[in-house]
């Protein structure tokens, strides 16, 4: 999944980004790609256990469904239709926990909701769970310990149901890895690192991406992209255009 990266399904991918190069487009690409690959079964199809649980669960700390719908429509995906049919499910974490009224909010309520949404036995076509994003949860008041426990529990639940988990984390100090990120890196299978160009914003190149193996990665043949030879991309409204660093194939 996630072309041109060859990330296998069922893994836990941590996506890190910075304010100058946000990784929204990757998350949208995952959701839209998944919906296109697994079209909705027709009305005459058998109602099995697979269609009762949503295929894509998006746990969002930012309640911005309008943007999701607008971006998906640009990619030719009718997101409202898939939400109403139950294929895609949005869960707003902040409203689940009612932050303002509880002095120490906990994420256990959200976890209960999510585990109810995941299928109890592994379906043939894997599900996708997206956690967008971990750093916002920390900033708005959830305790870091609670967050990392939630992420680990989510990882185990996804592993049991062979779902792919993608979590997003914002780096606020470029080059520095804080405690939260260290702990996330120990749990993840793959780490997609999106960074802006060192020389600042450019009209032609938006940023660069590297793919690293996380601490929990099994030995496999996934082609990694190192930071030195990273893939650069230019973001357009229709999605990113990737090209090798230093070349100008079809972009510049």
């Amino acid at each position, binding site marked *: 999944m996630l072309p041109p990266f060859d990330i296998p399904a069922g893994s836990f991918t941590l996506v890190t980004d910075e304010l100058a190069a946000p990784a929204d487009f990757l998350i949208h690409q995952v959701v839209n790609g998944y919906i296109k690959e697994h079209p909705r079964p027709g009305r005459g199809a058998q109602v099995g256990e697979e269609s009762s649980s949503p295929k894509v669960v998006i746990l969002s700390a930012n309640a911005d469904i309008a943007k999701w719908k607008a971006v998906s429509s640009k990619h030719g995906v009718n997101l409202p239709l898939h939400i109403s049919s139950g294929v895609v499910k949005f869960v707003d974490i902040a409203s689940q926990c009612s932050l303002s009224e509880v002095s120490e909010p906990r994420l256990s309520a959200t976890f209960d909701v999510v585990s109810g949404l995941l299928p109890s036995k592994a379906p043939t076509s894997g599900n996708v769970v997206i956690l967008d994003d971990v750093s916002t949860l920390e900033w708005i008041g959830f305790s870091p310990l609670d967050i990392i426990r939630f992420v680990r529990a989510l990882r185990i639940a996804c592993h049991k149901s062979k779902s792919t988990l993608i979590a997003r984390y914002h780096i606020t100090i470029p080059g*520095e890895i804080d405690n939260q990120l260290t702990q996330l890196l120990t749990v993840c299978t793959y780490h997609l690192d999106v960074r802006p160009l060192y020389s600042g914003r450019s*009209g032609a190149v938006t940023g660069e991406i590297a793919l690293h193996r996380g601490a929990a990665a099994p030995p496999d043949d996934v082609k990694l992209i190192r930071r030195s030879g990273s893939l650069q991309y230019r973001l357009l409204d229709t999605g990113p255009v990737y090209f090798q660093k230093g070349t100008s194939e079809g972009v510049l």
Partner: protein
Amino acid sequence: MSSFRRKDPSKQSNLKSYAGTHISPASSSIANTSTGITSLDDILGGGLPLSCSLVVAAPDLHSSYGDLVQRYFIAEGLACGHRMCIIDDFAQDFMQDVMWFPRSSSAPIAETEGSASSSVKEGDGMPGGDFKEDEELSQEDRKVKIAWRYENMKTFQTTVSASSSTLENYCHVFDLTSRVPVSLVDEALRSQRLSLVATRGPSSTDSERWSPTTSALRHIEQVLQGQTTVPVRVCIPFLGSPISWGDITTTDVLHFFHSLRALLRKYPHGCASITLSPKLSSDTWGGSGWLQKVGWLTDAAIKMTAFSADPSLSATFPAHHGLVHILSLPCPSTLVAPSDRFSTLRGLASSASGFGGSGENNLAFKCTRKRLIFETLHLDLDGGVSERRTTAPSSTAVELTTATGASISAATGEKCNHTATGDHTHISGGPKIDIELEGGARDPPKMDAQKEVVAVEGAASGTSDKKAKKPKKRVAFFSERPDVYDF
């Protein structure tokens, strides 16, 4: 039968059109509203989109450019007839200093709900006296002989000009020398178009733990629920000031921004503009990466760093008053922020289409007598501060006279002789530079000047020492441009 159907632009957008807004050029489902400053609207990509929040960080303690931006926001809201909500303990005093239309053109009648396009009368036809000055200057420039190959190029512009049409109800041109009439403010308060909310006050239920941010959010929600026919503008001119907001923590502020954004998404006819108090605008208060966090949790965030804290910067860029850093830009319905494609000031659009693609322009702001302008920042024509001049410009020669009356402009080139001062100038014992004074003064006065300068240095008189030192310390160069404060 062809399946091709031409899109009808009038039917394309099912967006409810509000007064004082434009449809965003990037997406037909988003409406932009003006901040009151044309150049800031350009930086944001056409204006502040409804359902978005703008945060201005102004870390300088000694200047108030941050709340100047908020005053423009309020003035524009009043002129367009939007519903305004200002959250501050001293909002009443703040309202008295809001700018208004220039006295020369007639001020528009206050927009009431439901009234159609603006009733601005065309006063003298020009949007403001300032433009007249600019036009006169450009005409003088045209008399300068330009090389033939450059004659057809348009003049170098550092900012976008205001819309010349005074009939358009978007981004009105305000004059800093005039104030909003008190009657207009009172009328707006009476008709509930403007509400001034204090942060301190008992909450509705005393059992709840009261905090300024939660009460502010509650007020904002009430305003957004109560008014749906016109856009709602929420303005917080001093978020984090100790008097109004008490001991606020970073989590409180971030949670406030997060909840505000959720509220604005829920009621997409509202927008918010907030200035952080100087204490909250720097990383020393919030920890490293603080402004990045603010940028993530709000839609648009800019930082205006005034030069008043750093005299060397104000000498290097004499025409500007501060730098502008863009942290994040509004992007409510697209992957790429509309500003990247449509902003003239940032210059990304023009660079992307060309071969290679360069970076975006540096931005700065300046506050003239009549308005606040955001501009592109360029180095001087001379190439910056490290260039060595061989002729003293005439204006420098005029200014550098000692108490004895003799011109010591020659001394600027002879700095190598005065190593005793231990100054940081870069010429130290290097080759002697020949200086030719403009106006005909030749060798004899130069020699005399040198002797006199030595005498002055030895005399250790305070004022003349300062005057002798003054040209050495200045590393920027004077130009023939008139000083902006020449009035």
